[in-house]
């Protein structure tokens, strides 16, 4: 009897790759799947499940399945992918400066002038209005700093 190819470890490995890439290409766009990457964890769980099932088969039923070498290699590669994902989403994304000097609640913000996306100069105090010496009507401002490099 010819032995079958054992496709489960390869399938598990590919699911892990998809789980990794889909977070950065897709799931990170939505707060619900970005802040806590549960959708990615589910995909990884599926991939690891396939791997575990696939790893055991050539050892339990050696007369039916091949892949005693390929299985463990794919398992190690998959673990590396899982490990890199965990590192990226738990440690790497937390490497941020403390920003001890950021204006605190109750403090005045420093003014600045920068260009907007159309190249027009915009002054923060002008948006806030006359109370801080700006020119425009009084209003609140939500000031968001992004990392950039899009």
């Amino acid at each position, binding site marked *: 009897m010819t032995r079958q190819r054992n496709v489960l470890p390869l399938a598990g490995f590919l699911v892990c790759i998809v789980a990794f890439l889909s977070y950065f290409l897709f799931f990170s766009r939505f707060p619900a799947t970005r802040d806590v990457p549960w959708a990615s964890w589910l995909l990884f769980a599926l991939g690891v499940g396939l791997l575990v099932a696939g790893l055991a088969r050539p050892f339990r039923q050696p007369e039916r399945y091949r892949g005693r070498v390929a299985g463990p290699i794919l398992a190690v590669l998959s673990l590396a992918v899982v490990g890199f994902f965990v590192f990226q989403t738990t440690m790497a994304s937390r490497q941020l400066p403390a920003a001890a000097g950021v204006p605190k609640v109750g403090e*005045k913000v*420093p003014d600045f002038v920068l260009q907007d996306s159309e190249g027009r100069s915009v002054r923060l105090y002008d948006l806030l209005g006359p109370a801080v010496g700006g020119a425009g009507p009084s209003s609140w401002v939500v000031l968001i700093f992004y990392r950039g490099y*899009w």
Partner: protein
Amino acid sequence: MAVSVDPPAVTREHLAKMGWTYTFLSDPEAKAARLYDLHHPVGDQVIARPAELLIDPTGTVRWVDLTEDYRVRTRPETVLEVFDRLTAGKS
């Protein structure tokens, strides 16, 4: 209003792609980021550490969110809730 280190052309492209319409400033030398102590050197570049500030018309900070994980940002509804709370009872 948002600030990033990208030049205006890159920002314009990104705004069009994302469908965002708010004022988006370019801070290629991380001037504002340094002024607010939010600059973050990464390799030989300086970007900003993500942060959100709610500033009232007198220029006073009324609320700050300094995320500890750049994947996790303030959601718009959170800022709106804070604004409603801070302005409750005032005209």
